[in-house]
């Protein structure tokens, strides 16, 4: 089973938010809507032992996506390669998928009255290109690929990072597939 997802190396992220801008520009994301967002975690600790890291957030491409289960019309669905997508022609704008998302990474477009989310730039990947956020990241901290394929770039990046430094957001049975790399020498991962 193929599961395309995103891996973000937080050791490298400089919090420039180029990914946010690139996403907005590439996908024409409306004012007030967000498909990805860079958060600042910290600073925590006491001087001189202070820690801080940047956390780029987006759809976690859950294997057992609760948003897909909650959608009454089948507008939210998983593509053949495991990416969670929204068919805007089927969406009735009930926002139950937003209720069901454990991370609040879906957005309601007030103008078109439908729910939107990160598509991993499926249109670019279909043309053999990288998603806009991956392409434009100046630190090269984003990777996209099939996490179930041991020969993929994301699998290689995760393997090289070491299991202790690979983190995942809280799982309430949804099995998020996105991974974050953060070594303890940079900062301590906050749940």
């Amino acid at each position, binding site marked *: 089973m193929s599961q395309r997802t995103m891996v973000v190396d937080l050791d490298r992220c400089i919090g420039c938010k180029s990914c946010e801008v690139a996403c907005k520009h590439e996908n024409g994301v409306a004012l007030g809507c967000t498909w990805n967002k860079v*958060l600042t975690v910290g600073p925590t600790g006491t001087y001189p032992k202070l820690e801080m890291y940047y956390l780029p957030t987006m759809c976690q491409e859950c294997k057992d996506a609760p948003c897909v289960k909650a959608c009454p019309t089948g507008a939210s669905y998983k593509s053949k390669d495991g990416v969670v997508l929204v068919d805007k022609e089927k*969406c*009735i704008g009930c926002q139950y998928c937003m209720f069901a998302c*454990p991370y609040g990474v879906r957005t309601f477009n007030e103008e078109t009255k439908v729910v939107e989310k990160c598509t991993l730039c499926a249109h670019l990947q279909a043309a053999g290109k990288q998603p806009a956020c991956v392409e434009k990241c100046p630190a090269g901290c984003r990777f996209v690929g099939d996490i179930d394929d041991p020969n993929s770039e994301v699998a290689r990046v995760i393997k090289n990072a070491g299991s202790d430094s690979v983190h995942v957001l809280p799982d309430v049975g949804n099995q998020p597939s996105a991974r974050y790399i953060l070594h303890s020498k940079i900062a301590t991962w906050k749940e």
Partner: protein
Amino acid sequence: MSIQWPLVFFTLFVGLGCGIFVGSVVLTEWCGKAKQIRTISSSIAIVALGVGGVSSTMHLGHPERMFGALGHPTSGIFMESTMIGLFGLAIIVYLLALRRNASDRTCKVIATIGAVLAVVLAFVNGHAYVIAARPAWNTLILPLLYVASAGVMGCFSLSVLLARTKYADTIATIAVTETAATAETSTTTATTTIKRATLIALAFQAVLLIAYLIHVAVAPYPDITRSVMRVLTGNLALLFWGGVVLLGFLVPTVLMTKFYTKNTESISPLTSVKLSLASVLVAGVAFRALMFLIGSSIKQFF
């Protein structure tokens, strides 16, 4: 999260409709009391269901695509829509049976089917919010509270109908003494029954509310947005103590006591139960609003 007002009123009116119908069926068909309120209570139930249904469509961005929901039978919206359709149909059939003077047995069977559907609908209404992503909602206590809320609203609505009937009968006494006296006796017995039911529903709701607060306190992934302290002493305290506790329990209990002790010096029985009903309706809104305000997801990134 922000309060989803269309959903607040959707669940409130649907709960009201379910409560009135179930209460009426138990009182009139099962206990054989105050049968004169069958038509009016069922009519009110279907109107409440309609108002709730209209309210729910106001939450949708594209209600014209609503029939697409028929393709996904496991979703909460499908369950709610189906149950509303079936319950509405049961009420209509029941009203037709009453209109055509069907036998008592036929009416009782139809009414019982409708009552079962109503209880399931009230439960399904709350169950749609049992979501793992929202720790404060992720408990079966929530749908049970929706059922209890429907019961309380139903009991007070029936109290109003009974008080009105009694009032009308008293006027009729002037013209036809014997018939009115019989009707009044029946209504008085029904009033006693509904009093017991109201007290049980209020007690059931109070226990569930405490259980729900305990759930909120011990729910996983604690966060200030959904903490029990925020509800009891924080910025939601006024909504909880004023809206849910005062208006949902204390005010209606005091007013009902006045009604049943026939203390009519300061306030008439009919006014008393009308105020009680208004009070529990506002409390119903307050509880649902509170539910949305503490319904934050595990992480809210955007």
